[in-house]
């Protein structure tokens, strides 16, 4: 409940108290006036007592004074009530405007990309109150679909403010970053910094390559989206923690490939926790069952809306309900694939490189020696970044992209550290005798020896090292 609403509530409570005490005063006033009159009729009329006159007058004046006071207060009370009504009307009006602003932050034109044949998106958001804490967003940039869904803890005005911040951060960060792991990590940093009200947001963010169907995603404590193809399976997600709880959290990024006709269904827990009059929850099982073999996003959305409203009946809506269907429709199958790894600039993360290269080697059926060589080249390049791109003690991320083609394999390593061009460093002189042999310079020498092509560029505040091996 909002601060302003609280004030109104307190005011109303206070005015009720005032009214109760005034009623008491009225009763006491009438009693005093009554006693005054009784004394007059039964005592004073019969025998004239010396104190009878003053007692009668005193009681009568006291009673009348109370009644007059009460009448004055009543007039003031009426004015106060009028004021409260005005404030309430103004707040309702402001909430209505806030609702309009909030809804304008969310895509609302569907189908969203009628000119494109490769994507079909439908979504809806139904807040339980005037304003809500759910959000979704999506946009296409450089042939990549950036999308997200989120649910702010709590409801009403406070949740809606955090929702607006979350959506703005997503838009701003996603414009410069194609790794959802990095987007989520940066969002969490901003939100943990300013979060004194201890609100948090469960969030899921994905970046879909429209040409290849390659999907990179990162989850921050949100419900796993459901992948609808021949089966209906939740996307495997590492749950991680919601946004805004702990600064410095490492959010693990994941990836998969969408195929032609696959649909991704994202939702908030308002769907699974929709309640009927018997206080039963809609639940995940009913939700999955309601997802039919229908293929269009629009039909999916309408069918799910109907399933929820049939279940809930006349029971009041208790939480915001948000659904987003993304239907991938690119028929051209690409001959390249991608794999990604996001690590912190920490030597402790180096062993992850071996697993990463191993996965690619299995997919590409590379022999053991070549796998070890590729692992070595990658490790040397990444170690260079960890050692030289980030000043000692600063935390940064290293994004590693593997592009797998039929006859070659490339690694693209990027970081946001200070400018560092490893290709400009002198090679180790490997012909020197032991006395003159230098200990450094071996890393980049190994990279050059193993890979067929190595190049560096500084772009958009990032070091980008690309290296390719023909296979």
């Amino acid at each position, binding site marked *: 409940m909002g601060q302003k609403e609280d004030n109104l509530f307190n005011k109303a409570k206070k005015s009720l108290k005032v009214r109760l005490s005034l009623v008491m005063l009225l009763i006491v006033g009438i009693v005093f006036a009554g006693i005054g009159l009784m004394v007059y009729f039964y005592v004073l009329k019969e025998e004239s007592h010396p104190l009878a006159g003053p007692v009668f007058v005193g009681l009568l004046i006291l009673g009348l004074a109370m009644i007059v006071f009460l009448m004055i207060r009543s007039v003031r009370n009426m004015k106060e009530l009028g004021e409260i009504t005005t404030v309430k009307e103004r707040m309702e009006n402001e909430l209505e405007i806030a609702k309009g602003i909030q809804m304008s932050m969310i895509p609302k034109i569907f189908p969203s990309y009628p000119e494109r044949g490769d994507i079909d998106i439908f979504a809806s958001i139904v807040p339980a109150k005037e304003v809500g804490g759910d959000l979704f967003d999506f946009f296409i940039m450089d042939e990549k679909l950036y999308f997200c869904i989120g649910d702010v803890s709590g409801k009403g005005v406070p949740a809606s403010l955090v929702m607006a911040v979350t959506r703005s951060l997503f838009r701003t960060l996603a414009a410069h970053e194609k790794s959802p792991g990095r987007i989520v990590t940066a969002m969490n940093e901003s939100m943990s910094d300013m979060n004194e009200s201890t609100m948090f947001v469960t969030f899921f963010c994905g970046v879909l390559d429209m040409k290849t169907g390659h999907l990179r995603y990162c989850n921050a404590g949100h419900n796993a989206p459901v992948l609808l193809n021949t089966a209906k399976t939740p996307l495997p997600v590492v749950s991680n923690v919601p946004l805004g709880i702990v600064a410095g959290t490492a959010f693990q990024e994941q990836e998969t490939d969408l195929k032609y006709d696959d649909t991704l269904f994202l939702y908030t827990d308002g769907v699974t926790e929709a309640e009927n009059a018997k206080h039963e929850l809609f639940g995940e099982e009913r939700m999955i069952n309601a997802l039919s073999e229908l293929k269009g996003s629009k039909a999916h959305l309408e069918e799910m809306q109907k399933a929820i409203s049939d279940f809930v009946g006349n029971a009041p809506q208790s939480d915001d309900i948000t659904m987003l269907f993304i239907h991938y429709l690119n028929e051209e199958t690409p001959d390249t694939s991608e794999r990604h790894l996001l690590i912190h600039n920490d030597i402790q993360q180096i062993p992850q490189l071996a697993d990463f290269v191993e996965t690619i080697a299995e997919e590409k059926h590379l022999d053991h*020696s070549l796998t070890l060589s590729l692992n070595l080249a990658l490790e040397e390049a990444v170690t260079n970044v960890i050692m030289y791109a980030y000043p000692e003690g600063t935390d940064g991320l290293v994004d590693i992209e593997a592009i797998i083609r039929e006859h070659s394999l490339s690694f693209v390593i990027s970081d946001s550290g200070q400018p560092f061009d490893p290709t400009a460093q002198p090679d180790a002189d*490997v*012909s020197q005798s032991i006395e003159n042999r230098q200990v450094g310079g071996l890393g980049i020498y190994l990279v050059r020896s193993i890979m067929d092509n190595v190049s560096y560029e500084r772009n958009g505040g990032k070091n980008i090292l690309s290296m390719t091996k023909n296979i």
Partner: protein
Amino acid sequence: MEININTQGKETVATLCGRLDTLAAQESAAQFEALQEKARGTVILDCSKLEYISSSGLRLFLTLRKAADTKGGKVVVKDLSADVRNVFMITGFMNLFEFQ
């Protein structure tokens, strides 16, 4: 990465087991320093179970070799696997050590 060090008289045998990547090299630095102390005599690096080596590992080998040179001892590298030998070849380390 596991390193077992065994000294008998003037000869010290260090058995290297597993992957000597950047992290493992950092974690093994103390043991290599201990080996430098033994470099007055002969240090044999048994590499039959060494699966992988990166430049950080090579640097440990080189520093040890330099220490032996100063102290008048020697370093022998034993049973390199083909893949690790390949890294020694690329970096010119084949000329710096004695091999068995």
